[in-house]
């Protein structure tokens, strides 16, 4: 009996994994997306070594210079090299995406597990609170939280994480409900394994795949949300760059220095697009129907 329960998920996994990899590799869009993302992550990690200039070094003699051989993407309102700021800004933007989703999952998934697994009054309470949070518009919630916590990148990440949290709670709960009466869970319960053990050992691994897909897609919207908050002045604070805060200053120079807004905008767009492509690829690969 003890051998039976863990065997069930374990047995299907190798097969699942190879089929999943095969399908994911067959998806060109997802592969390209993943490749570009890896490149961006490398760029962000290697920023100190590959950035051609100091992203914070102001140069009052070369303010708002158009792209040239010296400054590939031009300079900004304080004469800083936009390429270098873009490279360093990748750090904040990617970090914002990753950390805020981590926060969202760290809170949302346990809540969803509890609600789904235990049910009853606890479930009703959690579900109602999540429902309430979901019916506040995402950005409004993030703006209010951002204003509450004070403008900074860390606080923006917390705000975005908290606003995205209910999605994970709801998704997890739904997944748990759908497998709640599977044999291996009934079995594990029947032999009196502690709930905590069951949830972590049997429930969580089985609800994980859709969560991974959701996480990838949420990173995409979290990066957009960070850009939006920075655009409103609630994200990364100067002089440190993030793509959103670069856009926030750039919007004052649309006519005088259009390159200031075009470059970071494209960076955000490409990154978010790649996360979406990868998310799609993962979903298709994990979907048992197709």
């Amino acid at each position, binding site marked *: 009996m003890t051998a039976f329960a863990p065997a069930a998920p374990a047995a299907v996994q190798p097969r699942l994994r190879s089929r999943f990899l095969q399908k994911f590799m067959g998806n060109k869009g997802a592969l390209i997306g993943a490749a570009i993302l890896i490149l961006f992550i490398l760029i962000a990690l290697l920023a100190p070594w590959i950035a051609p200039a100091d992203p914070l070094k102001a140069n009052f003699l070369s303010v708002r210079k158009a792209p040239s051989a010296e400054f590939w993407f031009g300079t900004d309102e304080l004469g800083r090299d936009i390429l270098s700021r873009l490279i360093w800004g990748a750090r904040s933007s990617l970090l914002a995406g990753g950390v805020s989703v981590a926060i969202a999952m760290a809170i949302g998934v346990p809540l969803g597990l509890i609600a789904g697994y235990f049910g009853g009054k606890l479930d009703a309470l959690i579900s109602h609170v999540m429902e309430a949070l979901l019916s506040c518009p995402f950005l409004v919630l993030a703006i209010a939280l951002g204003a509450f916590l004070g403008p900074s990148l860390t606080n923006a990440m917390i705000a975005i994480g908290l606003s995205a949290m209910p999605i994970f709670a709801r998704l997890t709960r739904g997944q748990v409900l759908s497998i709640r009466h599977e044999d291996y869970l009934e079995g594990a319960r029947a032999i009196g394994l502690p709930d905590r053990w069951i949830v972590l050992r049997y429930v969580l691994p089985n609800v994980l795949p859709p969560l991974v897909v959701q996480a990838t897609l949420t990173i995409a919207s979290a990066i957009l949300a960070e850009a939006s908050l920075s655009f409103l002045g609630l994200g990364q*604070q*100067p002089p440190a760059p993030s793509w959103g805060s670069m856009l926030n200053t750039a919007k*004052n*120079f649309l006519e005088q220095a259009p390159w200031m807004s075009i470059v970071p905008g494209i960076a955000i767009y490409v990154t978010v697009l790649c996360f979406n492509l990868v998310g799609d690829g993962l979903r298709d690969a994990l979907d048992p129907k197709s």
Partner: protein
Amino acid sequence: MIPVRLLTGALLLTLGTSAVAETTLRIGIQDDPDVLDPHRSRTYAGRLVYAALCDKLVDVTPKLTYDPDLATSWSWSDDNQTLTMKLRDGVTFHDGEPFNAEAVKYNLERARTLPDSLRKSELASVDNVEVVGPLTVAIHVKQPDATLISQLSDRAGMMLSPKAAEGDFASHPVCSGPYKFDQRVQQDRIVLSRFDNHWSKAAYHFDKVVYLPIPDTSVRLANLRSGDLDIIERVAPTDVKTAKADSNLQVFNTPGLGYMQLIVNVANGEKANNPMGQDKRVRKAFELAIDREAINQVVFEGLYAPSNQPFPKDSSYFDESLPMPARDVEKSKALLAEAGVKMPVNVQLTVANNPIAQQVGQIIQAMTSEAGFNVNLVATEYATLLSEQQAGNFQIGMSAWSGRPDPDGDVHQFVTCKGAQNDGHACFPELDELLNKARTVNDEAQRKELYSKALRIIADQDANIYLYFDPRIIAMNKKVSGFVPNPDGIIRLKDVQFAQ
């Protein structure tokens, strides 16, 4: 509303003036005014609207002297305890109520006693208002007040219809200005229309004046260029080149009254306990590390006026003999060495979280780092900024002041020990004495001497470091003629018209 419109339409038809097309002047303003009640309102945008909506007792000229408006003449008694004003005859409010000495008394009382009046401090010196005759009032003051006329040239001197002021005034303001209130859509528009019984109606040429709040400076300019607006105010310095290059536009760049200053927390709570708060040499070192002209060039295209004092160059109180210190990094380092502080000196600089303030903050950060300061820039939203500064939760705060025509309003409340805006709690008794005295002296030369002494103390202590004055940049379509710019940036519509 509709029947009234129809009626006016019919009247116009019978008068035969319907052949003349209705003229509408559209003015783009930076933000939406708050309550439209001069005694209770606080925004600069509100003052822009009042310029057309409400008459004042006196008006301030481009040279910062005072001209008659509803008061045709005024004089101080010999002991400077009573200001007597003669009022204009034949003036009516938009609702038909007459303007007279009773109305002046009512308005000044209202401004002084309304619980949420923001004009109380401006009229603090007023003891009582006496109706001497139908068109003569005497304002008795508690102590001589050299600033009173200047206060009456702004919202404290605006005259509301006493009847309307008793009701819900803000939703339908009634004054006696050349244009009367028509309609307001929050955050969208304020529509005024010509007041046919205005005492100087021949000088006003539009049937309608519409104020449209558009916060984004470049968007405001784009609307002006496309012809959707006729006038815009607060043009961004970086947009001036574009505006000037457009052959359909004219740009007025007038030195303004508003300035930017750094306020150092020297005695307001825990955050004052550091070298910056305790040692004026460290503050001087900070000031010397800043190149005001470079800020002007980089951020403001050289259009602003760098300054180390709170009075504009055009003011007669501007002190020529107090030169603006040039940037001197060596001296700054020497001062820091002399003060024996631990290097680098960590400083927190709080700025508003708008791009311009942040840009200036970043330049200060870069410049002072060369002298050995390590500036941590803290961008804070406006609403939080105010309460944080008041609570002493700041080390250096960068804040803007819109400026007043009288020197008192630019300095007293910021640097006196109990000043309402003295967030750093700097307190120098001799400075208080000088500035309090300057309030009571009517003689300009004498006053100027008092302010000169005060400015030297401020410059020596460096608890308030002045950076620059911002000009009032107004752009308009070339078809608009007759506009006279004023340092206060208010758009007065007298004689303004579309070229034929």
